[in-house]
């Protein structure tokens, strides 16, 4: 009875993108601690190696790849093997008031935040390497998604995440035929490099934190644990939804 754990990832292989930093890094480490074998990917080989060294257990794999580069995606797909889980976490932030939202800026953000996770999933599905009963988790955001937050200057980023959220639902419906579940997580502000761009001052962040009912921003673990749940068999009957993890800020 002591080994009972419906959230265990033991016996599962999970690909985590954006694993060289922030939420993706912590998710990869937590997955390994929950017994999973992980394939981690990111652009920066040094930071990816740092994540790799923190993984618990054996047989993990790291693949350096720029997910906006089609050839890199090919080699990533080729080196994955059969996957029980996929966490699509790589992404970038962007702050730009509406009248400065040029198509160039949108292309840059959509390339990694929307097109790359959707294309990676598409290739894996086409190649039939996602196992039956596998679980896919898109990391979206409360920014721009239904019921979420629409803050000044966040239009490009929020629209990219809303598009991702929508495609998550379509994929969930279609992949249910193969018993593959597709969900998302919508985090509020999480303390990672993504929010440390300096456009918003520390004072503004502190003031913003006070508007969160739980009076703090998230830590990567807060999001990783939601992702672990969605990857695990505990979430076997959950598909097509995004779990809001935001310290109550959208209440």
């Amino acid at each position, binding site marked *: 009875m002591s080994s009972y754990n419906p959230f265990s990832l033991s016996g599962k292989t999970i690909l985590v993108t954006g694993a060289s930093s922030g939420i993706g890094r912590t998710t990869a480490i937590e997955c390994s601690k929950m017994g999973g074998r992980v394939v981690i990917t990111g652009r920066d080989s040094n930071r990816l190696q740092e994540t790799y060294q923190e993984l618990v257990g054996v047989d993990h794999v790291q693949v350096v790849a720029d997910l906006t580069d089609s050839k890199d995606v090919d080699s990533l797909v080729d080196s994955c093997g059969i996957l029980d889980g996929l966490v699509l976490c790589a992404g970038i932030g962007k702050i730009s008031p509406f*009248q400065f939202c040029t198509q160039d800026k949108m292309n840059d953000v959509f390339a990694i935040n929307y097109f790359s996770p959707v294309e990676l999933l598409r290739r894996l599905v086409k190649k039939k390497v996602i196992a039956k009963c596998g679980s896919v988790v898109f990391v979206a955001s409360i920014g721009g998604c239904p019921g979420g937050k629409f803050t000044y200057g966040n239009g490009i980023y929020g629209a990219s995440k809303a598009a991702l959220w929508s495609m998550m639902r379509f994929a969930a419906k279609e992949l249910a035929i193969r018993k593959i579940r597709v969900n998302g997580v919508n985090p509020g502000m999480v303390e990672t490099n993504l929010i440390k761009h*300096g*456009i*918003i001052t520390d004072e503004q962040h502190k003031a913003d934190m006070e508007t969160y009912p739980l009076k703090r921003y998230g830590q990567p673990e807060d999001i990783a644990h939601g992702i672990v749940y969605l990857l695990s068999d505990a979430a076997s009957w959950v598909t097509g939804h995004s779990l809001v993890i935001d310290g109550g800020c959208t209440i």
Partner: protein
Amino acid sequence: MDINTFIDNFAGQLDETPADQIKPETNFRDLDEWSSLVALSIIAMVDEEYGVTLKGADIKSAVTVQDLYDAVKSKM
């Protein structure tokens, strides 16, 4: 880069304040319509026009339009 075009670009981010009221010595935080969105627009304008990335802290430490101009110029 000169202060007059900078002032024009600055004034372009405002909707209520007549452009001729903006001077180098204008304390921009005293403008009625100054807001966090205007501050973001100034950062985006400076990026677009001058290829310079201003930080929130640069805006915070500036008092006058001249200070902002100097901050941009020092990063060019």
